[in-house]
């Protein structure tokens, strides 16, 4: 029954998205499945790779789209109910729990990507001291991950966590007598980072240019001061209905306090206005619509999501195909993220096998995601089935940790070009921004420890999370078989012969099967071929 439904949805997707190659039309080989899962999930174990190989990628997507959602907040609520404390650490535990055991690997992957676009960070006190609010925010990203971008943008804009992070929570209307103006923070970043970006784009994501060849700004500072008026009057929706004091309620959208909302007409972008006399939420909705209808949004969001999932340097044609899925999902709906995700993952540029892709395709794996990949690929677990992983050292070790970006600009910029041959080739490689002489080493050391020891130090041994390398150890006496298996799981069968020879030579000098496995994993963790997801 379920499988028939899955197949029907798959056929539906086939009909509506015509951009994938013939290879996607058949059930795939295990290495193809492994590579697909490397893009579409946070990592997959041997069994999931084999299972997915029996499906079409489309069928896998269709199945993922209807899976239940692995929310984080319920776990924290449960802690509270039993009288336990809740801190940012416990929020990370629930993040790991859902990433490792949630029913929705694709959704978890996409939500993490969204958390690096619609950034809030526990680097800020407000986020750090309200872990339930932060979990609620992340759950909101999970909920909207397969929904509509307009709802996502609205929910982001009204979430008190974002309100606290970008300071439009309790943003008051102007007061000419004291010389106070509305806070411009959110107005600026919602345009620059969450929707349209700084410059007018063609549908393929390249810059429109003026007569002198210069990019054309999407807005100027007067547009920001106007947009700032829209985001006034929002504060906690507490029982006391108090704008400036009031109970902090982090799990409900902010409420509009009309008497603190800027009156009068306001100019939006592209010649539109909101009339005087609307209420505040109508103003917010008009502004969200104004941004949502902007021609930049499709290519802007397309490029950002492609960079998170598939490649740092998508061709303009790829961006345009995804942007057109944003503009119309095949049923006249604009902003369908399901259509966008399908278009990204099923595109010929994502599915073409890397050996034919030249020397610039793909992306450096995000530093922290190597940790997650190893955990998921080898079913990290403890006897209790829990994931009390606090990741206290992760920001230093990896330069990265979910919801811990140094600023709203994420851990790395989409336009980062590393000095040297990558910049000289005119290429972007955002993830290199957090690979320094320090983190290159500390992340390798952290993975070394993760492979060999535990993912968390807990007083209670039963709670220590370890990789399950049982299946690998069982075949480790055959070094070739072991390397083949690790190659399939971690590198979708693309390990070069020279790299294989290095591993085999090392394993040949080791007798102990467990030591063979951990050594091979530690070497893969440091290997340039593994580091790049092509």
């Amino acid at each position, binding site marked *: 029954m379920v499988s028939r439904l899955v197949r029907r949805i798959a056929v539906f997707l086939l009909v509506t998205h015509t951009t994938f190659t013939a290879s996607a039309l058949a059930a795939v080989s295990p290495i193809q499945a492994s590579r697909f899962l490397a893009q579409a999930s946070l990592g997959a174990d041997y069994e999931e790779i084999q299972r997915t190989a029996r499906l079409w990628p489309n069928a896998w997507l269709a199945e993922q789209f209807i899976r239940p959602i692995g929310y984080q907040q319920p776990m924290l609520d449960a802690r509270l109910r039993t009288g336990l404390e809740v801190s940012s650490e416990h929020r990370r535990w629930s993040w790991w729990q859902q990433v490792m055991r949630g029913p929705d690997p694709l959704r978890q992957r996409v939500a993490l990507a969204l958390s690096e676009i619609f950034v809030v960070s526990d680097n800020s006190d407000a986020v750090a001291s309200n872990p339930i609010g932060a979990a609620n925010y992340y759950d909101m990203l999970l909920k909207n991950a397969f929904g509509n971008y307009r709802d996502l943008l609205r929910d982001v804009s009204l979430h008190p966590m974002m309100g606290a992070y970008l*300071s439009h929570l309790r943003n008051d209307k102007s007061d000419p007598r004291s*010389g*106070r103006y509305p806070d411009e923070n959110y107005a600026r970043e919602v345009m620059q980072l969450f929707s349209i970006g700084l410059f007018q784009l063609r549908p393929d994501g390249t810059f429109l240019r003026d007569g002198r060849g210069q990019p054309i700004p999407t807005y100027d500072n007067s547009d920001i001061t106007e947009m700032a008026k829209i985001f006034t009057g929002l504060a906690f929706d507490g029982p006391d209905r108090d704008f400036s004091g009031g109970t902090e309620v982090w799990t409900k959208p902010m409420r509009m306090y009309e008497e603190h909302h800027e009156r009068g007409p306001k100019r939006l972008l592209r010649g539109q206005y909101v009339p005087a006399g609307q209420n505040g939420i109508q103003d917010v909705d008009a502004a969200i619509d104004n941004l949502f209808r902007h021609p930049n949004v499709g290519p802007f969001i397309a490029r950002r999501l492609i960079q998170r999932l598939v490649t740092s340097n998508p061709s303009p044609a790829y961006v345009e195909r995804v942007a057109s899925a944003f503009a119309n999902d095949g049923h006249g709906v604009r902003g369908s993220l399901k259509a966008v995700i399908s278009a990204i993952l099923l595109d010929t540029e994502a599915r073409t096998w890397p050996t034919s892709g030249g020397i610039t395709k793909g*992306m450096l794996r995000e530093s922290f995601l190597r940790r997650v990949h190893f955990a998921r690929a080898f079913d990290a677990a403890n006897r209790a089935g829990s994931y009390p992983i606090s990741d206290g050292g992760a920001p230093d070790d990896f330069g990265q940790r979910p919801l811990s970006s140094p600023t709203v600009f994420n851990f790395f910029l989409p336009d980062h070009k590393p000095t*040297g041959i990558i910049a000289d080739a005119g290429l972007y490689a955002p993830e*290199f921004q957090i690979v320094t002489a*320090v983190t290159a080493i500390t992340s390798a050391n952290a993975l070394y420890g993760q492979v060999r020891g535990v993912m968390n130090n807990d007083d209670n041994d039963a709670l220590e999370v370890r990789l399950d390398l049982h299946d690998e150890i069982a075949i480790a006496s055959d070094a070739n078989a072991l390397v083949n298996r690790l190659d399939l799981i971690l590198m979708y069968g693309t390990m070069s012969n020279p*790299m294989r020879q290095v591993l085999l030579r090392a394993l040949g000098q080791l007798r102990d099967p467990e030591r063979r496995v951990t050594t091979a994993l530690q070497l893969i963790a440091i290997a340039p071929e593994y580091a*790049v997801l092509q």
Partner: protein
Amino acid sequence: MKDKGRDGDVPRNDRRKFLGQASCAAVGTTALFNTVLNLRMFNALAVPGEDYRALVCLFLSGGIDSFNVLVPAGGPEHLEYANVRGDLALPQDVLLPIAPRRSDGREYGLHPGLVELQTLFGQNRFALVSNVGTLVEPTTLDQFRRGSVALPLGLFSHSDQSMQWQSSLPDSREAVGWAGRMADVIDSGNCDPNIGMNISLSGTNVWQSGRVTTHYTITENGSVGLWDYGGASQEAIVRTEAVDSLLALQYRHLFQKVFAQRMRGAIDANVDFSNAIANVPPLTTQFSNTSLSRKFRMIAMTIAARQALCMKRQTFFVEFGGWDHHDEVVLNQEAMLPVVSKALSEFASALVELGVDDAVTTFTASDFGRTLSSNGRGSDHAWGGNHMVMGPAVPGGDIYGVFPNLYPGNNLDTGRGRLIPTTSVDAYFAQLALWFGVPTADLPLILPNIGRFWVPGSSTPPLGAASAALAAARRG
């Protein structure tokens, strides 16, 4: 000299040619600069006896509200300040008075959290530069309004402005910094093959990114080594050999190649760096227990190891973030500015202890200044701001540039107290670069727009025009 492996694939012999092309494209004037500069610098550095200089950039990221760092303290001026700042104004009686050597006729005070810096100012070891910012060319309010002047790209935006404060290229989005450009041409004065002129304590940054060279990154505790690498156990031997082999393979994919270079460079540099630091006697100067102070301590240690590291010219980059105070600016600065004050003064003491206080200049930079007007306990992104310098490049005990009028609607106010800068970042950086050793004639190679703000070779240094004279001009 061996080329730096991690810096790219440009072989030594092609490097000069490459630089010539790159600089020519950037400067757009003459192609001969870089060879000249290279030779002159090399000769200057070959002078016997110690010739060591270091520049330290303290980047206050987020855009510091610096009109609460340097504040008008006299009656009428403070009133003007208090009126425009509203709930953000610091009371007159909490300001720490300073007496600039050249008076512009006004009184000034520092933020009450800058106790140590007030002392250093009084000792002529610390200076301020007022209303500095990014400019493509000198700009008036009228030109700004009529759009008749080229403006910095992405004015008031974090990403663009923090980049331009490091690149000094406000008309470009090229993320190449002026310390990076210096290193591209003068790194040959240093001789450790694994560690270049530029060292960052805060990871990747634009300031120290050149076209060819980049920066070496350390932490507040120094460099980091790979576990179980280079040890004597059988396992370590196996692993070391395998790691070396993996990193020595030929990679065609550019990302794989660069990843391998970074890993290799990091492993090798750690050996040199940790050896050099291990021989540094402990500093007697006490540093506070803040991350910023610990980073300045490590800079002092690195400077102490300069001979082992074979350094004649160095730059250091330290970032202290969290200044984007759209909310609670007064409370936050109260907590954060003392951290800066203590770290800088501790660093100054350590430099005296090491006998190199006349060889090191520390300066601040930030994304932008902030609006003079309040948004309700916070301020928003603006333009010109005040900055701090400590060290011989900028004689201390003085305020450079022109402290602007603050009242709403004054002739620099583009709205909400977003002030047009009266000193360009180019002039600010030119003062530092000249001291560092860049020959005047070759300054445009490092700061391509400098000619728009300062006549190279003029008798006054880039920041040197007396503030009193300029103030008179302003009032007239």
